């Protein structure tokens, strides 16, 4: 049975809201039209779909969502979410709408183009016209098509050839508190030209404990020798649904490094998809997930090795407490004739409670013969020997468990080079351990 009928109302309901979007350019209108048509052909997934069988989208389908643009809100001071290194290098979106008032880009080299996609498209920016929706190659994916159908505001960054941007750029997506559930889509397009460098902090913040549906799509293109460091922090409301797609295209001698940190949302799904487009490429797709309560975090990643000589790295670490549920499905493709691939994948899960749940599935499809692919998955609790050792040194049970959990998470965090982001995440780990470990001691 198709899911179409089941979720028909949900779909038509959402699409009917299409009218009030920003952006009047033909580029955007055409894409919206295409997205709209694609959505009509596709179905929203259910548990019978292999890629969705571990999680339940009931929370998504059971509510009707109003467009975020219709939400009335009084905005509190949001400056606490601004990263200090990105003082004048920041784009802010509130409920999906670009906020010029909160954005500032003066610290960035004048050669780079940075701004709101809808505005730039209205101004006839050729780069937006040429590149928008060119990299999000998620086939038959209703969520990315839906995002395209709703295309309006979003972040655009173009770093021209040879420009190395030292200041990290923060793209901050703020979701406000609201009485009614709302949906919001956002888009981010990053073009790193030959020999350029950029550090990007993609930050999703929920201000309340309300329910909303956030569906961001990020597209990144790395030309030859480009180097992009991308940290994504997902700290949505604890009732939110966050379904995200991130696509990166990587060309020769380019290096794409990404760290995805999952802290918030009731249900989150990340789908990073890295595509190697030429020989000799490096990329990293690390993740850290800290969940408790009824949170569900699902990561479906694709590392697509299409040409020879590629080094790829994926360390995905999850800490699960309460009734939380973590899903990992890591696909590694090595295409025919893509030789000398060195690919590392590991999913490590730390279960702090008896009721936590983990599904993990490495998935390798290798069609070349001169390839080194290591992969592994572990699910474990804190080692009681380690706890005893620390306690015998005078640390109490909580301190010992907190220290060990912190150590588990640190491996990902310490790779993040933006100091205040690193500090923020260290604090988040402390918050997490002090919040969760007291509630439910593991025997």
């Amino acid at each position, binding site marked *: 049975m198709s899911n179409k009928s089941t979720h028909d109302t949900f779909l038509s309901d959402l699409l009917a809201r299409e009218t009030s979007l920003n952006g009047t350019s033909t580029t955007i209108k055409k894409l919206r039209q295409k997205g709209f048509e694609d959505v009509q052909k596709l179905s929203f997934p259910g548990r019978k779909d292999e890629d969705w069988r571990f999680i339940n989208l009931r929370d998504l389908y059971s509510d009707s969502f109003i467009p975020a643009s219709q939400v009335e809100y009084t905005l509190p001071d949001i400056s606490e979410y601004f990263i200090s290194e990105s003082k004048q290098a920041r784009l802010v979106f509130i409920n999906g709408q670009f906020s010029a008032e909160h954005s500032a880009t003066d610290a960035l080299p004048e050669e780079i183009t940075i701004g709101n996609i809808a505005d730039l498209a209205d101004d006839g920016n050729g780069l937006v016209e040429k590149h928008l929706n060119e990299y999000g190659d998620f086939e038959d994916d209703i969520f990315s098509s839906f995002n395209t159908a709703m295309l309006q505001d979003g972040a655009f960054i173009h770093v021209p050839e040879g420009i190395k941007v030292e200041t990290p750029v923060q793209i901050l997506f703020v979701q406000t508190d609201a009485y009614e559930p709302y949906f919001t889509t956002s888009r981010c397009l990053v073009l790193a030209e030959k020999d350029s460098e950029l550090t990007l902090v993609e930050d999703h913040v929920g201000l309340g404990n309300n329910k909303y549906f956030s569906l961001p799509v990020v597209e990144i293109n790395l030309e030859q020798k480009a180097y992009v460091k991308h940290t994504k922090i997902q700290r949505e409301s604890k009732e939110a649904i966050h379904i995200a797609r991130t696509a990166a295209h990587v060309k020769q001698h380019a290096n794409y490094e990404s760290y995805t940190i999952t802290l918030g949302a009731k249900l989150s799904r990340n789908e990073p998809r890295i595509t190697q487009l030429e020989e000799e490429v490096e990329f990293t797709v690390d993740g850290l997930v800290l969940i408790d309560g009824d949170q569900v975090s699902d990561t479906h990643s694709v590392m697509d090795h299409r040409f020879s000589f590629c080094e790829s790295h994926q360390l995905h670490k999850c800490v699960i407490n309460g009734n939380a549920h973590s899903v990992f499905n890591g696909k590694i493709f090595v295409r025919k004739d893509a030789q000398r691939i060195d690919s590392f994948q590991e999913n490590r899960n730390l279960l702090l409670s008896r009721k936590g749940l983990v599904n993990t599935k490495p998935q390798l499809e290798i069609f070349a013969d001169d390839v080194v692919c290591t992969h592994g998955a572990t699910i474990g609790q804190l*080692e009681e*020997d*380690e706890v*005893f*050792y*620390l*306690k*015998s*040194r*005078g*640390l*109490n*049970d909580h*301190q*010992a468990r907190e*220290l*060990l959990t*912190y*150590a*588990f998470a*640190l*491996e990902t965090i310490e790779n993040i080079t933006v100091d205040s982001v690193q500090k923020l995440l260290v604090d988040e780990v402390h918050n997490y351990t002090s919040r969760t470990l007291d509630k439910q001691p593991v025997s």
Partner: protein
Amino acid sequence: MLEIKNLHVVVEEDGTEILKGVNLKINEGEIHAIMGPNGSGKSTLAKVVAGHDAYEVTEGDILFEGESILEMDPDERAHLGLFLAFQYPVEVPGVTNKTLLREAYNTIAEKRGREELDPLEFEDYVNDRLDIVEMKPEFLDRSINAGFSGGEKKRNEIFQMAVLDPKISFLDETDSGLDIDALKVVAKGINYLADEDNAVCLVTHYQRILDYIVPDHVHVMLDGKIVKSGDKDLAVKLEDEGYDWLTDLASVSVNGEQ
């Protein structure tokens, strides 16, 4: 300082009795050595004193300064001034020695009514202690025991002892796996730390370390009991004659109890 009275201990998981009535009294300023063959229960005794929860005390008591510590968690015992140097120190990747020691030192300091040290003061305090076991300052920034050689791990245990300044230390097979130079360093450190106000109990299979650390009392443990106590000459006799001459003694007392 520490008094162990008729201590009976079983493995919690399967009920196997390991300690079958241990009596031992350790006073301030004393160095004791507990010797015995593998499986005699000497390491278990050290772990039980530290509060390992894999063991259950079924009879008897452990008194520290006159108070029973049986109901105390390992950390509470550490706060009182008990220390266990592990036979197999645990590797804790991601937590540096410095982080652990500062947190441990300050927690114990708070409990014992001493002044806590801020990071700078702690740095000075710790650097002085490094010399005791001839360790380089880089040691502090390494993850606890991760990738350490056997000798480094053992030295790190004595270093932790030096930093935490316990009243009584059980050193579980601290000499095993050490080459002669490392053994000398470790022994020197222990001798330096042992003074009038504290006590040390060496748990060891071999007499070797006793060439460098002279014990006041030597006890022989066989089949979960201390079957003989004496002075340092007892250790020499054990080295020469092994444990066989004592096994009769053990079976007699075990039978005597039944």
